[in-house]
């Protein structure tokens, strides 16, 4: 699917140590007639990148506002590092960092002053505030903009500074709400790199996104959330294994795709054949034997140029489990700026 953006190591990142840091049980939140979050339960382990993947309106932001203490659930419990913060959100706020879906720093303050102010909110002393702010500005390639007002930053710079502000107090867990939505491609890529680096230095990350590729690249485990419910939570590896049961082979050739499918359908009725822009795809519950198919097509006067096995993508798994067409997620992606390219 995506060949351009392997900025994150192929080795899966964000695997946890098995010790729970965030425990959520039966969380429900209603707004008048909408049930925004409907009885969700999950655990985030220390050290992992946990992804919340779902379309717009699925309940991702609502979940984050509850977990961080800006909103009260109608029922359910939230524990951070073993502390029950369902009724006392203040109990764990020193341990968590938040990067909201919209950058909410002070437009009239400079980048540097914004970071120092955020550090002061967590009781960090002046000398230390200044050191941390400078280091973060350097790490996030924002030194040149350090003295400029936040209000004049580009979207990508704003998002980066908001992330820096979210980690200046060295939180154990960082909540990121759609960190690359509405950001230009290069900045989005850099932001994913920063998230990955941050995690490899020990910060646990809870991330929401509606970009399937982003979840796949960054997250150790993913929860699919649809209409307020989690329909599946698993490691990327396990989710993919689920899809390995399917066998798909793609043929490329010169000639008419419709005729090729007709040929195959007549000769091998138990194979499912469909056309794609490149040619045709043949699907079967058993491994597909390519030889007989190529011979059949060639005998029919169709010159096959390529035949290859199509590995299932997380997108396929997502579509299968949630019943949401990947196209629907893509449309949202285009509407909101297409960050995950």
């Amino acid at each position, binding site marked *: 699917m995506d060949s351009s953006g392997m900025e994150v190591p192929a080795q899966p990142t964000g695997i946890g140590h098995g010790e729970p840091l965030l425990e959520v049980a039966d969380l429900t939140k209603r707004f008048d007639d909408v049930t925004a979050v409907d009885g969700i339960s999950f655990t985030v382990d220390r050290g992992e990148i946990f992804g919340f993947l779902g379309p717009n309106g699925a309940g991702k932001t609502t979940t984050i*506002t509850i977990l*961080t*203490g*800006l*909103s*009260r659930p109608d029922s359910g419990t939230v524990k951070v590092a073993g502390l029950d913060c369902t009724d006392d*959100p*203040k109990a764990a*706020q*020193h341990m968590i960092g*938040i990067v*909201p879906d*919209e950058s*909410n*720093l*002070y*437009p*009239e*303050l400079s980048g540097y002053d914004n970071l120092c*102010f*955020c550090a*002061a*909110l*967590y*009781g*960090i*002393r002046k000398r230390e505030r200044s050191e941390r702010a400078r280091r973060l500005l350097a790490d996030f390639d924002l030194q040149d903009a350090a003295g400029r007002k936040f209000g004049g930053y580009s979207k990508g710079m704003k998002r980066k500074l908001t992330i820096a*502000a979210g980690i200046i107090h060295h939180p154990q867990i960082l909540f990121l709400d759609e960190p690359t939505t509405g950001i230009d491609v290069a900045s989005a890529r850099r932001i994913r790199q920063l998230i990955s680096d941050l995690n490899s230095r020990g910060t646990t990350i809870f991330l929401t996104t509606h970009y399937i590729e982003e979840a796949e690249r960054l997250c150790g485990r993913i929860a699919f959330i649809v209409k307020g419910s989690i329909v599946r939570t698993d490691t990327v590896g396990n989710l993919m294994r689920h899809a390995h049961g399917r066998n798909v082979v793609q043929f490329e050739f010169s000639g008419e795709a419709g005729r090729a499918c007709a040929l195959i359908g007549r000769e091998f009725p138990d194979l499912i054949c469909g056309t794609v822009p490149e040619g045709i795809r043949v699907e079967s519950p058993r491994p597909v034997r390519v030889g007989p198919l190529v011979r059949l097509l060639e005998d029919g006067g169709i010159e096959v140029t390529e035949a290859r096995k199509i590995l299932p993508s997380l997108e396929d798994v997502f579509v299968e489990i949630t019943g949401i067409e990947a196209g629907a997620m893509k449309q949202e992606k285009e509407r909101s700026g297409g960050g995950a390219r």
Partner: protein
Amino acid sequence: MRKWIAFWNILLKDMRSYYLKPPNISWGLLFPLVWVAMFLIRSGLGLEMLPELLPGLVSLSILFGTTSVLAVTVTFEKKGRSFERLLLAPFSLELLMLAKTSGAILFGTANAFVPILAAVILTDLPGMNWAMLIPATLLIAVSSTFLGLLIAVSAREVFEAQTFSNFFRFPMIFLCGLFFPVASLPVFLRPLSYALPLTYGNDILRGSIAGTSLMPLWLDFPVLLGSCALLFYFSINIINRKWIT
């Protein structure tokens, strides 16, 4: 200690971003001065009337100085979502709101000293009781700020907060006995006067400047303190209910 670092920096940021900005400084200085001048000219009486007018001028300067800034420091920041940062920080809502209002309290108190200093320079005020005047000024600043806070957290938009506060503060000029005694108001309005904390604050000011308070101090001070507590309590309650949804 950590909490006080946060407290101090919230206050400092508000000072830099709002109170020490030229438009606010000039508003804070000019407004009371214009009132002083206006009253002296209109009354045509000259400086011997100053002790009579001073309590009302001080109250007015504080009332307008404090209530006008909270629409910006609170309602505006809530609207722009930066207030969420403060709500997410690890200290109590009470401490947060004290930090957010302390700037306005200081600003209001500073405003009060514009007419006071003008009066001290222009006339000698023989009967001035400073030990009463200073705490009264501070308490009026606190109660007016908390009234402004209650309005600011009840409003959703900045203009709404400004409209609401005008709805309160203009009638208060007449209801709280700033320039006409409460006794000269129609009987049916007087209960309103006694429900407003500024009536008591202004009464202490009259006592300390002109020596003509209507109510005893043991009533004025506790009522003023009680209103501060009540207004703060209601404001926190609204934030807790409406902003943490």
